[in-house]
């Protein structure tokens, strides 16, 4: 008879952890590729969203659909759209897709293995980074073709702001995964609500100046709104009136703190939610 000694359990080595993480990334990527309709749909969808909003915006320009837009408008819309794509994909693929593991029953199994539980979320970050980056490049290329030249300044600082904003966005995704474990299927409604709130209060498709003052106060209470504002202001070379929500130094501080603090908070919230689910025995309940 084989005896299992609890004390003989050893934590996985770094290479074993990396190997299991890589296996999870590959698993996610393989699943993605196995649904060609979904894969193609997400690609075509971006094209259509860009065209619809571009045409809508051009209805307010003197030349109409035949003309272009000022470089400022192109910058505001294009850079905002990149962050919109990332937030949207993060909420769905990191936040809500924990439901898929739950429904398939694989979430319960992961807790029986020595693999890192956070790697489940981490593997999705990698997929989101790769796939959404490709979509963003395509969207920006399309927008510049439709609207006109895109202003590109301060690339180094812009990249730093993007990394911080994305890091904070992924942290938001982790926190949302925690919420998904708690509220289960209702999380689908919550994703839609969050996405639309982001579209209004973080102004990814328009300048903050278009928002009425009371809504601007809500925007000022959302760290990601500063990420959107600072990212596009930086890459547009800080034209007059940009950044719109706060002075540059204040925005940079908020975005940096958001980028560092939100993943930590998100992971902590997720761990609390999974402990709660394990205690209540609801990991595989849906």
């Amino acid at each position, binding site marked *: 008879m084989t005896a299992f000694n609890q004390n003989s359990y050893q934590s996985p080595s770094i290479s074993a952890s990396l190997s299991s993480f890589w296996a999870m990334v590959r698993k996610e990527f393989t699943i993605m590729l196995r649904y060609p309709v979904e894969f193609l749909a997400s690609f075509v969808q971006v094209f259509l969203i860009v065209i619809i909003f571009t045409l809508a915006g051009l209805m307010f320009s003197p030349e109409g659909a035949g003309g272009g837009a000022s470089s400022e408008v192109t910058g505001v819309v294009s850079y905002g759209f990149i962050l919109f794509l990332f937030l949207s994909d993060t909420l769905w693929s990191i936040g809500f897709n924990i439901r898929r593991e739950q429904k398939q029953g694989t979430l319960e199994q992961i807790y029986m293995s020595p693999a890192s539980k956070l790697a489940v979320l981490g593997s999705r970050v990698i997929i989101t980074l790769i796939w959404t980056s490709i979509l963003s490049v395509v969207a920006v290329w399309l927008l510049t073709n439709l609207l006109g030249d895109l202003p590109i300044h301060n690339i180094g600082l812009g990249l730093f702001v993007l990394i911080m904003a994305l890091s904070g966005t992924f942290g938001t995704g982790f926190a949302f995964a925690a919420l998904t474990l708690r509220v289960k299927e209702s999380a689908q409604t919550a994703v839609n*609500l969050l996405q*639309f709130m982001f*579209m209004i209060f973080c102004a990814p498709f328009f300048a903050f100046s278009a928002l009425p003052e009371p809504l601007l106060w809500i925007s000022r209470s959302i760290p990601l709104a500063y990420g959107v504002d600072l990212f596009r202001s930086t890459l547009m070379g800080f034209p007059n009136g940009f950044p719109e929500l706060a002075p540059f130094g204040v925005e940079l501080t908020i975005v940096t703190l958001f980028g560092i603090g939100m993943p930590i908070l998100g992971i902590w919230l997720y761990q609390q939610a999974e402990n709660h689910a394990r205690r209540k025995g609801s990991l595989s309940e849906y």
Partner: protein
Amino acid sequence: MQTFTYTPPTPRQTLSAALAETKIRLINATRYPGQMLMEILIPIIFAAMPLLLGRSTGGANAAVYFEANTGTANFVAYMLIGSNVFAIVSYAFWHIAHWVRFEQETGTLEAVYTTPTSSTTLAAGVAIYSAIRGFGTAIIAYLLGCAIFRVNPFEGQVFLALLFLLIGLVPLYGFAFLFGALVLKIKESNALINLMQWVVSFLMGIFFPVTVLPAGIRFVAQLFPPTWMVNGVRSSLLGVGYFLENWYLDFAVLWAFLLFVPLFSVWVFQRVENNLRRNEGIGTF
């Protein structure tokens, strides 16, 4: 020995089966009030995007430029009509496709074929439910949106606008049924609907007139009933101009769609269905 004789259901029984399907879905919908609230809020928020984009692009002259490009300065109502008609169209596709896929996944589609009730009858029940839900929430969303953005919702010919919407619903559900056949065939609904939503919003000119599209795409767009619905409503309320100059000519086109699309869709759906039944495809998903 007892003998069984099959008699096809009477029209009254068929109607009763369709309405029973409508009833269970309406009861089910009331169990998710949060979802209903979102359905009212989403078209308003969706319309707010181009409104805010327009304000930041056109500045103080936004209404002037908009009128020059579309034929009306009331861009708030223009966008709200677009987003609400889109919501109706979107729910039509969601509800029909989701019904097909759900029945397939739970195995009840197979069972339906062993009863005297046809899948077309059940689809009609789903369509009635969907039309009530979609139309109801769209009207509330439009009125609420107009109140939020402070525009008059009853400007223009309201009755004519409602007629365009109601007549357009029949060919719209015909199209949705056609889409259901596609879902049945390729056994995928979510990604297809997500894609379809954007294709539909583009073709019907959700936030812009389809006249700005290139001739080829415009032609395809005008083969799609929601394009005529949304333009009919906008023309009735905002006077942006009918495609064929007069309301009754645009109306006649919708009637032509009404007569042709549902029959064509049922024919296609039944062909796909028969094909799958013969090739062991109904129960596999």
